[in-house]
């Protein structure tokens, strides 16, 4: 799988968070680089010394309300000046450089879109402002990509929340940007539209684009993102593949359910292993608690074979993004 979060030159992303299990070599063509960026408003620190670099792929930006996600996205979109550090898009500063927007598309969180324009009119406005040679064709392509063709000629003021969201996305896609930033893009979408948008983001990432989106809906992040950036209280709490992050948090218990030919015998054997600190029978299955993911996953098949127990199923019970995020926020 693509690993879009790259170590920065200073390696600060890795210091700020549990490092990815297998750090990728530095990528000189990172589409987006955030280098020791802070942003404060008076005495309030909204973003605190964050560093990471993104290459092609879909990355989810996670964090509770007020964590600094939107501030971070606006810094990357060149809509806010960093108080310290720098944001680079394709190697050049994002702040006060309008030419950057040829490579960047942004879907802001605020719902407001010019209500007197039609969906097609809005996409065409974006295409004309991008200086595209054939704005009508570009607008039609973007409208089709977001599945809004049927309502393209209706004023946006009559749109549902989900339709407005798709119109905003069409406006951001119209110039085929290399980097796409989306602030809560799944808000207001019905399940079918969500699946469509997920597929769209994935296909765009597969074409080599860098996509970063914020969301509170962790299951969606888990389903669509290759990697996550977890932001808490303005700091980067974690960065990388979320399962890798999860495995690195060795001080956090991992739980597995195991179904085998002899759960009691296997449970006794596992309790003797130093990687396991709890085993109990729950609902006819063996529930194991371990502090060392790697040691346990190595020990389990060896112990099963040594005790002549057949393993039918081994499943992690808490390896959801929700549990990773909750743990990081509590820490």
């Amino acid at each position, binding site marked *: 799988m693509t690993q879009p979060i790259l170590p920065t030159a200073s390696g600060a992303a890795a210091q700020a968070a549990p490092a990815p299990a297998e750090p990728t070599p530095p990528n000189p063509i990172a589409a987006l680089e955030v280098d020791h960026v802070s942003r404060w408003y008076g005495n309030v620190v909204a973003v605190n010394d964050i560093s990471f670099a993104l290459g092609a792929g879909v990355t989810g930006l996670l964090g509770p309300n007020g*964590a600094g996600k*939107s501030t971070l996205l606006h810094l990357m979109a060149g809509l806010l000046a960093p108080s310290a550090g720098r944001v680079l898009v394709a190697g050049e500063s994002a702040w006060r450089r309008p030419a950057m927007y040829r490579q960047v598309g942004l879907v802001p969180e605020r719902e407001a879109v010019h209500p007197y324009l039609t969906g097609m009119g809005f996409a065409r406005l974006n295409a004309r402002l*991008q200086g595209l040679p054939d704005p009508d064709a570009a607008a039609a392509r973007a409208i089709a990509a977001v599945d809004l063709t049927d309502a393209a000629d209706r004023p946006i003021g009559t749109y549902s929340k989900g339709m407005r969201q798709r119109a905003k996305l069409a406006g951001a896609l119209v110039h085929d940007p290399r980097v796409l930033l989306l602030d809560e893009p799944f808000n207001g979408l019905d399940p079918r539209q969500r699946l469509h948008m997920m597929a769209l983001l994935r296909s765009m990432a597969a074409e080599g684009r860098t996509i970063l989106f914020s969301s509170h809906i962790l299951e969606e992040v888990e389903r669509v993102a290759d990697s996550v950036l977890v932001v808490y209280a303005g700091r980067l709490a974690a960065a990388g593949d979320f399962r890798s992050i999860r495995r690195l948090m060795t001080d956090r218990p991992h739980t597995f359910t195991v179904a085998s030919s002899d759960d009691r015998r296997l449970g006794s054997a596992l309790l003797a292993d130093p990687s396991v600190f709890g085993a109990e029978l729950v609902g006819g299955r063996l529930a194991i608690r371990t502090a060392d993911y790697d040691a346990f996953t190595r020990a389990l098949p060896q112990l099963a074979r040594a005790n002549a127990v057949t393993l039918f199923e081994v499943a992690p019970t808490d390896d959801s993004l929700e549990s990773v995020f909750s743990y990081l926020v509590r820490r």
Partner: protein
Amino acid sequence: MSVVAPLVDVTLRGLLSRRRMILLILLAGLPVLVGLLVRASGGHPDAGRVLDTLVVRTVMPLVALIIGTAAIGSEIEDGTAVYLMIKPVARWKIALAKTLVAVGLTAALVIPSIVITGLLLGSGRDLTTVVVGYAIACLVGGSAYAAAFLTLSVFTSRALLLGLAYVLIWEGALSGLLEGTKFLSIRQATLGLAAALGVNVPGSSPPLTAGVSVLVLVITLVGALLLASWKLARFEIRGGD
């Protein structure tokens, strides 16, 4: 400059909302209505006095205030300005397009009001001088007002209130008390320009000279455009958290 056209287009469409246009047309029609009433009541028509009192001192600044503060201020307020900011368009072009629309729309409302009111109330050989003099002065003065109020709306969300305070307090109440305020008054510069064009401007104190009037209006117009461009180039849009 090809991006200026879509900017002008979207700004015009935003400004021409039904409610705002009704308000503006009513405001611009006020001098015409007064002219009709004077005619109907058989009073002594004095085009110069009505144009000075109603257009230069009231209608022109208010029309320019409503249009100037809405041209970009309403988009900043409702969040749609972000779609203009995230484009590969130099911010001075955004300021220029918005100013062109505000200036043009102000002129489109104020100049016909002057011409119709003048024709209703004026007579004799001075009529052309009065109408043309006020029309040209208000074209320049209205442009300065619109540009100044537009720039104010880039700096503050309270532009409408501050603009109203400028027109009513600075140019209205204080101009009669403090002689020096007229050098910082778009109204006085407009009246000075009208006087230079041959209009007999009513008032107790002599109007500004033609040179000073033109200087004040040009500095206001160009300065406002430069300031708006400068501010937009550094314009920040905060995230939701």
